[in-house]
């Protein structure tokens, strides 16, 4: 029996997921709930979260708590984390999934928009992780799983988004080393093109061109990301840390579309 096996808690593992009202975050929440996790969901819109929570409870029977939080507001994030701990008895898995995408070429990028994407995606991740660290340390098998993006490798028209996701990958390497002796693993998942309501707003011809550039021949689904999250979140996954895992159908090694994928 591994040391991780011996530390598996008696209560259900608790996952706190930011950006849970979005397509990928929702998929992660649904999958982890189906595996028996207690779930705390966070996003900026409480009404959207309530709808997700009701759907998950209806399909899995798992009680899901929702906590609206603005990731740009440290107090708001801390309150959501504290409420999750109070409701569920702790946090074992933090999934940093919240993010926004506002593309523009360098010459057209509004600095305020560059900053906004940094604030939500990177500063928000740092703030949430900081707030959840005491609970994750108490877990003994804490997991920090952050969603980056294939744009981490660079993307046309996405200097802001790519920087924010690269920052998450960078700090995750540091945290993985600093928190290793606390039993906390820190990893990133870099999704490629995943079919969500946001991605479905793209023109059909662009989606088709993206699909043709993906070696496995299809776009990803939220469940593809959720299964990877579940693998990393497991209490027995304590020997895998400091990594960034592309979930992109092989596109990260096959090249990319660089042009005409942004409207601005």
């Amino acid at each position: 029996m591994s040391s991780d096996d011996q530390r598996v808690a008696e209560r259900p593992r608790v996952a706190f997921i930011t950006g849970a009202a979005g397509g990928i975050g929702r998929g992660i929440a649904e999958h982890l709930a189906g595996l028996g996790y207690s779930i705390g969901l966070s996003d900026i819109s409480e009404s959207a979260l309530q709808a997700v929570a009701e759907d998950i409870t209806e399909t899995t029977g798992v009680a899901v708590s929702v906590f609206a939080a603005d990731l740009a507001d440290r107090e708001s994030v801390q309150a959501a984390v504290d409420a999750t701990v109070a409701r569920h008895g702790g946090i074992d898995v933090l999934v940093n999934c919240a993010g926004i995408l506002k593309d523009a070429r360098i010459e057209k990028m509004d600095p305020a928009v560059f900053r906004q994407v940094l604030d939500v995606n990177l500063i928000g991740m740092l703030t949430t992780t900081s707030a959840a660290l005491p609970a994750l340390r108490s877990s003994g098998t804490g997991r920090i799983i952050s969603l980056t993006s294939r744009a981490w490798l660079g993307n046309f028209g996405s200097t802001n988004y790519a920087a924010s996701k690269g920052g998450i990958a960078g700090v995750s390497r540091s945290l993985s080393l600093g928190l290793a002796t606390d039993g906390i693993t820190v990893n990133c998942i870099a999704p490629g093109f995943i079919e969500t309501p946001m991605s479905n707003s793209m023109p059909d011809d662009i989606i088709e061109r993206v699909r043709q550039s993906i070696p496995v021949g299809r776009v990803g689904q939220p469940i593809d990301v959720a299964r990877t999250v579940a693998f990393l979140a497991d209490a027995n996954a304590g020997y895998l840390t400091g990594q960034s895992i592309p979930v992109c159908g092989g596109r990260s090694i096959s090249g990319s579309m660089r042009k005409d994928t942004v409207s601005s």
Partner: protein
Amino acid sequence: MTTSTFITIDLTDTTQPADVPASSVVVLVYRGTESGQTLDTADLEQAVAHPLMAAFSAVQHHWTAITEARHRGRVIVLAPATAALGDPLRPLDCAVTGALISFVRSVAIELQRHGGAANAVFYDTDPNEPAVTELIAALTAEHAAAVTGQEIYAANGTDLGRLHP
């Protein structure tokens, strides 16, 4: 043959002049901050947001000159190797450096159609050591634009055996 104009910008300097002459070769230097950083007490505005906004503002300010220089246009990020590879005592430096890596990769992609190049160079202890200076000279040479979107370690081998980001 036109002459490239060159500017070095310290990303942690909060007193950058607003209207510097446009340059076609822009070197963004990030030196990191102090050791023993913690997320909960950190001034994220100063430690993270400021240097990244400074990087973007500099590239945007000089973008016309960089792109009009065609194959001579360059953006180079210079940062500590330990912050790129992962330093448990400097999570915020690692966040900034990770962001700069992905930033410069994206700049390289946008710059490619103009003929220019963007790269990141990582140093061991001193951004002014000879190996770094000579590497930057090589990357800014007239016919070096084919080297773009790369992360290059001039770190005395301190990166060997470690997975690069």
